[in-house]
């Protein structure tokens, strides 16, 4: 039988090699022969529609001004998960995430960009802002108007998991902040409020889109806490008459930041076009597109034009209610933080 063992393994070697080569051959595919430059924008969940339009517009703009074809690839997912992927090697030229903390992580964990990244672009590197609003079912059967209605015993609230979702952190901090700033507000009151709120949350999805589909397609919950953009997308474009947006009198000023990932653009030689791409977000056309997708523009001209699209409300900043992201993360969302202490998964 020993002879069988001598079966010529060498015969398989070329095949194995071939497979290995086939596996690696497309390993580097940024520079394409026809001079098209490719950018990868790693973004969070609710910006899918926004960047689809922005990318096409920027490609046209870049071709007209520089005569170069640019193709922008998109990757979407929960903000924290997306940051993790970039840290682990997903070669994003730019990141457009839900919150600054996730971009901070790119510096802290992998030095992909400098610590002062947020000062490199105007308005804290957030070309558009948003806020957190409520989506209710048609006719608002539970008469939900304000934050206090969310902690009523007969109301169930859908919000994703703040440990994994950027949007959910804004939701949480909006709830926290309004209680903190409300009449007789204190940290204890705010804590009691979020504790009561999360008692009304039957399920925590991992991302904002997941929570939206839970509310819209699976029919769970009386009210969805959502990005303003997501809320309007759902009511105006997807769910038509099945849902209504309720804007509370006060909420948080959400600033989803954008940044060039220095290490990646320098390696790929795409810095110029990546920086121009982010600058385009601040341009009149970029702002106009953002406004059309229900992100609040920074440009006053565009904002004035779309004033009727964005309901007026008082927006407090993260700094006013929770310090910076590092502190917010440590106090509220880190393991053993406030959220872990107040949220106990319901047994039923």
């Amino acid at each position, binding site marked *: 039988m020993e002879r069988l063992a001598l079966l010529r393994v060498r015969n*398989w070697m070329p095949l194995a090699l071939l497979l290995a080569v086939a*596996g690696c051959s497309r*390993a580097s595919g940024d520079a394409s022969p026809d001079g098209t430059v490719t950018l*990868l924008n790693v973004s969070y969940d609710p910006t899918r529609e926004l960047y689809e339009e922005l990318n096409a517009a920027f490609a046209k703009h870049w071709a007209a001004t520089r005569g170069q074809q640019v193709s922008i690839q998109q*990757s*979407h997912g929960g903000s924290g998960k997306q940051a993790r*992927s970039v840290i682990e090697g997903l070669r994003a030229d730019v990141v457009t995430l839900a919150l600054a903390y996730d971009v901070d992580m790119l510096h802290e964990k992998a030095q992909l960009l400098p610590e002062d990244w947020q000062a490199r672009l105007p308005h804290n590197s957030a070309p558009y802002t948003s806020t957190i609003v409520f989506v209710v079912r048609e006719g608002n059967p539970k008469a939900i108007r304000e934050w206090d209605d969310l902690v009523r015993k007969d109301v169930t609230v859908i919000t994703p998991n703040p440990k994994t979702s950027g949007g959910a952190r804004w939701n949480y901090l909006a709830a926290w902040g309004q209680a903190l700033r409300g009449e007789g507000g204190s940290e204890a009151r705010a804590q009691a409020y979020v504790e009561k709120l999360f008692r009304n949350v039957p399920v925590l999805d991992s991302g904002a889109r997941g929570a939206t589909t839970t509310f819209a397609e699976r029919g769970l919950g009386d009210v969805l806490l959502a990005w303003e953009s997501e809320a309007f997308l759902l009511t105006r474009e997807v769910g038509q008459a099945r849902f209504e947006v309720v804007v509370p009198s006060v909420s948080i000023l959400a600033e989803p930041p954008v940044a060039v990932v220095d290490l990646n653009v320098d390696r790929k030689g795409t810095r110029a076009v990546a920086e121009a791409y982010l600058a385009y977000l601040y341009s009149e056309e970029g702002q106009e597109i953002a406004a059309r997708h229900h992100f609040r523009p920074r440009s006053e001209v565009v904002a004035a034009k779309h004033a009727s699209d964005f309901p007026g409300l008082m927006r407090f900043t993260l700094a006013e209610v929770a310090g910076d992201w590092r502190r917010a993360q440590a106090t509220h969302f880190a393991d053993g933080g406030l959220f872990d202490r107040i949220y106990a998964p319901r047994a039923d």
Partner: protein
Amino acid sequence: MHPSTLVLRRSARSLSGPAFVRWGLIGAAVLLLGVFLIVPLVAVFTFAFQKGWEAYVAALTHPTALAAMRLTLLAAVIAVPFNLVFGLAASWLIARFQFRGRSLLMTLIDLPFSVSPVIAGLIFVLLFGRQGWLGPWLLDHDVRVIFAVPGIVLATVFVTFPFVAREVLPVMEAQGSDEEEAALTLGASGWRTFLTVTLPKVKWGVLYGVILCNARAMGEFGAVSVVSGHVRGVTTTLPLHAEILYNEYDLAGAFAVASLLTLLALVTLVVKKFVEWRSQPS
């Protein structure tokens, strides 16, 4: 009456049971089958065609859908032959030889079955990620593994690793090695013995394994999802593409892609049945 007859008759009656129990059980089984298999199957195609045939075709011929199909096929075209060769070699080794670490090898082959696909994906991130063991070296040499096509192929190979070996091994063990020994005594080379004696006897087992391997390779979600990076039209396989469309509220598109995967499953079932039928020693 002899006591044993009594026992027999009683057990026969308890086996068949009263009619309502029998029909109740059959009904429950049919209902379960309906709820878990038929309804979802119908639902997939209903949703897929809810916007009509043209929307269905448009969803499947969209460039990103075509790219997803190509990537899915590429992963399968690499994973299946690789696992075929490996599975044959491994099962031959295990079936024909006694050696140290034989049972360890068998356990290792089964490993992808027992490891959650998500964990499998994370293993590759830990290995090939920028912060992983091989990450810095790969970065220096500009080789991309995860978040690129090779990572997806690797993850697919990993999760489909056991299929061929697991199907071929029992067949080979059942065959015994008498005929191979005869061939060798008659002067056939090892390679020739393998090709003309061993292989033909296990061919149905091999085919069966290949079918299962292919189905899993094309349908894998978890492990591939972890290493994909979800770059639309670049590192998305069909299951990932279906998820993306679903997340973009494009239900018809998502289910159109899902229907393609469902068709693949149905074809797999039919071919599998055919192979089972052909391999019966009638």
